[in-house]
């Protein structure tokens, strides 16, 4: 067996390890082991690459790796769970950037003279450079929005779609010119810069509430860029891994779109949160109903004498860092014999599954975390639905008001429970800027204030019941 065959076999082991890692993610009990198998697979691939014949610059590569590994490890250890969407966006960008740089340096290697580059390799280099750069710049903008370094509101200007369309067309033309034989390094660098600009312009008009979709999409992009790099280097492990990531990102993007009842095009080009602001108000208060507000003591009595309480957490809970207090409240209620579960909407939080991680961090056992399809049949048997920092995902207009911008979006049917308590900072509408008739429902009471303060007051009051 030749050395290159041995390396190829090692890469095959890596592919198996990655597939197993994803396979083991089907259950929280097996997932940690799966992740370690994946890491082992990665180590094997890196080792095999170093064993490759004719590899130069061992020491500089090794030193760069030894210096950058602790940076990645430190970031991963230090990041707060609420900041996980930013972290994932950043790693997405870093991966995409690496793919683009590999494309750039490989172009330099394979195309020393015009006309020597093969079509398949050339196309792959262009794709890797384009998608990688878009992913890099787009991810950094998404990071900035999530970290609130730049405004999370959609940034729009007249003719935006036209500008973006023209830029993309220009980039594709440039790529074709390079492939047609104009293999100048400057053109490739211009392509990279243009793609970076496009990545920025493409994410800027997308609002903060749509970030789960954007992060999933950029995840898919980086996977595709890695796969394209695999075609450049004729390396199967890159092709397979890249496509696994691409499939994952695509699937999550589709799921997020379905959970918000919106097409991908609507998310990317709709500038949601800006357009709908004008239509809000149509449904509110027409029947003269008013909002009932309650004190923490009232709510504590309701909770303490309930048989079944369902907590509906939204992003407001994460922002207020109230997940640990919610867990304490749930413990108190459970000691009194109350059954407590959590109903989690697919887009609760700022990335797919974010709320589950936040509650798991607060030591909530995962069997108590119910997905939407599992939670909805339970609401008619629920005494109190405790809505904390969630708004649009519990808006009954999505079910019944065909004029509502979120009409058709699947929601948690909290209004079917005997009583609803909404913890909310104020009567300001949510991310999407839409009024919520749930607040006017006669079975609903509002507890105004910061989520953390309110939950702390509830804890104190439940102790005194």
């Amino acid at each position: 067996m030749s050395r290159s065959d041995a390396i190829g076999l090692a890469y095959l082991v890596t592919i198996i390890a990655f597939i197993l890692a994803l396979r083991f993610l089907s259950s929280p009990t097996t997932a940690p082991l799966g992740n370690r198998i994946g890491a082992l697979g990665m180590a094997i691939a890196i080792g095999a690459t170093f064993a490759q014949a004719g590899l130069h610059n061992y020491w500089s590569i090794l030193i760069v790796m030894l210096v950058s590994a602790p940076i990645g490890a430190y970031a991963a250890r230090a990041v707060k769970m609420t900041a996980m969407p930013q972290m994932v966006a950043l790693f997405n960008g870093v991966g995409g950037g690496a793919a683009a740089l590999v494309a750039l340096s490989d172009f330099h290697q394979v195309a020393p003279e015009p006309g020597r580059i093969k079509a398949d390799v050339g196309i792959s280099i262009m794709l890797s450079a384009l998608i990688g750069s878009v992913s890099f710049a787009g991810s950094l903008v998404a990071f900035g929005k999530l970290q609130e370094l730049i405004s999370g509101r959609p940034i729009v200007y007249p003719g935006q779609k036209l500008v973006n369309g023209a830029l993309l067309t220009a980039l594709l033309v440039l790529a074709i010119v390079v492939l047609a034989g104009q293999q100048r390094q400057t053109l490739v660098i211009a392509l990279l810069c243009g793609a970076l600009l496009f990545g920025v312009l493409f994410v800027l008009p997308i609002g903060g509430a749509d970030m789960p979709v954007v992060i999933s999409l950029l995840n898919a992009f980086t996977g595709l860029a890695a796969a394209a790099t695999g075609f450049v280097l004729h390396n199967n492990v890159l092709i397979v891994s890249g496509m696994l990531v691409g499939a994952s990102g695509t699937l999550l993007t589709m799921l997020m779109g379905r959970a918000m009842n919106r097409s991908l095009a609507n998310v990317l080009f709709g500038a949601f949160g800006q357009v709908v602001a004008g239509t809000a108000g149509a449904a509110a208060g027409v029947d003269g109903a008013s909002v009932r507000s309650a004190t923490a003591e009232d709510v504590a009595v309701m909770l303490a004498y309930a048989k079944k309480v369902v907590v509906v957490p939204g992003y407001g809970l994460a922002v207020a860092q109230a997940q640990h207090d919610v867990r304490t409240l749930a413990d108190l209620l459970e000691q009194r014999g109350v059954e407590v579960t959590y109903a989690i909407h697919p887009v609760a939080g700022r990335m797919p599954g974010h709320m589950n991680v936040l509650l798991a961090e607060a030591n909530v056992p995962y069997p108590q975390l119910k997905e939407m399809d599992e939670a909805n049949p339970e609401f008619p048997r629920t005494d109190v639905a405790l809505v904390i920092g969630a708004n649009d995902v519990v808006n009954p207009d999505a079910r019944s008001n065909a004029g509502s911008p979120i009409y058709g979006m699947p929601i948690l049917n909290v209004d079917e429970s005997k009583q609803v308590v909404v913890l909310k900072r104020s009567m300001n509408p949510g991310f999407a800027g839409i009024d919520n008739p749930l607040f006017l429902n006669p079975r609903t009471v509002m507890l105004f204030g910061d989520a953390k303060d309110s939950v702390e007051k509830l804890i104190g009051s439940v102790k005194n019941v």
Partner: protein
Amino acid sequence: MHTSQIIVELTVLVLAIFVGFEVISKVPTMLHTPLMSGTNAIHGIVLVGAIVVAGLPHQSTWIRIVALAAVALGTMNVVGGFVVTDRMLGMFRRRAPVRDSGPVKGVRGNREVSPTNPEVPDEPE
């Protein structure tokens, strides 16, 4: 007949897409964030490409810098991705810890096999 390399690679690509959709559609919503950070770590495989390119002979200085920058980004991607996923997955517990020790980071080993669900093995620590 000898199949050209590009056809073999396209075959691998298509099969990978189907395997990916098959495997990932079985991941529960609860684990979608670890799925994203885990796949994030996996696309760090681009590090392999970066090492290959950085290891080519006869490079101009600036291309060598570009390739080494790719190695640096790839390494951070790989290490950070796996570490953060491991940290997150360690938080998912079937039962609450016996004693509430609060939000201690990286507490592990409280996962237990439920008597009602004995077929689910625990992770070896």
